[in-house]
């Protein structure tokens, strides 16, 4: 994009509000469409003045939590995706490709099995630990003489992902049949079981992780020039990297442990935002988050309407979009 001006607060507010409007639009689309078509006016009435009618119940107990979960998941996955790309200095970095999602999913399965979730007030402990391990691992594997090698990084991520998937399959085979189906569906990326209770539990975690990421986002710009240059410009690279690693893993884990693996969203959206508005993390991160929220909500509408009355897991939809997009970037967009 030519004539791009550097970051200013007013530029940020303009772009962010634009995508916020899109989110509001997808909100209305989301609560009105589904197996039961609800017209716009009825939906509004149901939200602001809920009664005991079926429409009210559908809107309040099914569609609204589902919209919120989709938006929160989209926000978190795109925000953490953009952070991964920044710290790994690679526009191809994605939690799915890097094995972070599988690691997080394995952790979440373990969390479910030993029910730590309840003990820790919904804190996805193992999911978080495994995700942090995975991202630190690919960073370590990709580092050759102080610079990050794309090939090594992606390869080790894919191998790590395959390994963790095998671990998940192993755990699934020793599970009783009854739990198997719910976990299987959840793993594919599923928003259909979202409840208001779960949504309210995720929100504080997402806020807690997002706020510091956004506040220190400028450091991501400097880190993309490499650890030493960042250091020379005034950033402490080790501690900053650690903070970003932990917070973005935590965001990913919070979502994967609730919604399963929803791949490629964190790649597609930040990439499109970057090509349209530039790579400045101060704009890229929040705008990717808000755009990702709309994207996931819209994908979810497709997931539940295209084969209505049956549903496709949303992870399948995003993979259909994302995999070809990834290959396109790999072959034609890299220098």
């Amino acid at each position, binding site marked *: 994009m030519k004539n791009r001006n550097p970051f200013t607060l007013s530029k940020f507010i303009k772009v962010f509000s634009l995508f916020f409007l899109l989110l509001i639009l997808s909100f209305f689309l989301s609560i009105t469409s589904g197996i039961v078509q609800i017209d716009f006016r009825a939906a509004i009435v149901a939200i602001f003045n809920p009664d005991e009618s079926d429409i009210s119940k559908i809107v309040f107990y099914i569609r609204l939590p589902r919209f919120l979960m989709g938006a929160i998941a989209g926000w978190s996955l795109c925000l953490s995706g953009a952070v991964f790309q920044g710290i790994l200095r690679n526009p191809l970095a994605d939690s799915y490709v890097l094995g972070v999602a599988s690691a997080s999913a394995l952790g979440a399965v373990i969390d479910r099995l030993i029910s730590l979730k309840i003990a820790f007030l919904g804190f996805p402990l193992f999911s978080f630990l495994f995700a942090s391990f995975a991202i630190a691992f690919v960073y370590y594997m990709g580092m050759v003489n102080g610079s990050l090698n794309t090939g090594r990084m992606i390869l080790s991520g894919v191998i790590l992902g395959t390994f963790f998937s095998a671990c998940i399959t192993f755990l699934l085979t020793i599970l009783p049949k009854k739990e198997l189906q719910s976990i299987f569906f959840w793993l594919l990326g599923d928003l259909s079981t979202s409840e208001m209770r779960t949504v309210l539990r995720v929100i504080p975690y997402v806020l807690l992780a997002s706020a510091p990421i956004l506040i220190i986002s*400028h450091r991501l710009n400097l880190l993309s*020039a490499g650890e030493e240059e960042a250091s020379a410009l*005034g950033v402490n690279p080790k501690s900053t990297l650690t903070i970003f690693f932990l917070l973005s893993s935590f965001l990913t884990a919070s979502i994967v442990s609730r919604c399963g693996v929803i791949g490629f969203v964190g790649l597609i959206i930040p990439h499109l935002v970057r090509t349209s508005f*530039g790579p400045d993390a101060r704009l890229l991160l929040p705008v990717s988050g808000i755009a990702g929220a709309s994207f996931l909500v819209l994908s979810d509408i497709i997931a539940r309407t295209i084969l209505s009355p049956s549903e496709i897991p949303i992870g399948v939809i995003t993979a259909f979009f994302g995999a070809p997009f990834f290959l396109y970037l790999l072959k034609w967009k890299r220098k």
Partner: protein
Amino acid sequence: MEEGILKIEKISFSYKNLPVLKDISFEIKRGEFFGIVGPNGSGKTTLLKIMDGILKPEEGEVYYGKTTIHKLARKEIARRISYVPQEHELPFAFTVEETVLMGRYSHLGILGIEGKRDREIAKIAMEKCKVFHLRERIVTEISGGEKQRVVIARALAQEAEVMLLDEPTAHLDLSSAIEIMNLLKNLQEKEKKTVVIASHDLNLLSNFSNRIMLIAEGRIISIDVPSRILTEDVLKRVYGNMLTVVKVGNTSFVVPKILEVHGKNTV
């Protein structure tokens, strides 16, 4: 010019048990143009990184004035010393202006948002380095010489008194290299910057430096004014008996000795 600004005291450093610097001590004076010359692998880059506190020496200390570098936070160092590395990794399509503005990071508040003054300083830095007309261009799409000037402009935007540069002319053709050196000389003379350059190009450095430090295999061979470094006796200790010095006008140059080939003098 006599006052010391950076003092390097008894520095030793090794990579994986391989000694790179051995007991190095010297002092950079405020406002001087200081050249660090040595063959590839002599420890120049490591030394610069230690001087900027990016690497921590195993032994010894670096002082900025009277303060130990390692007691300063990264932001505090960045306001005093800027560093231009040899290779630039630029994975994302930042514009020239965005890149130069990154030099302001150490002066920004907690939210890291540049104000009017920061943009003005970046603008002046770009003008001085003659890259203002490129401000909207993507850094990955400009030439090597232009990119080098952008990174120097970024260092200038740091408003640090000392500038450390690692092989700033290594990948450049001769005319771009001389442009860069003239720019740096100008910054030293007009902006009162202390400029420290590491390079293997003895001829280029000796024409611009007040003093030159010759290092080989991690040890200081000599620190002196260029005319006393450019002598066969001194050079022999680093490069063997392969170089000689010729004078053109007032300027000395190092040239290879004409070798005996097949028992005959080739020229």
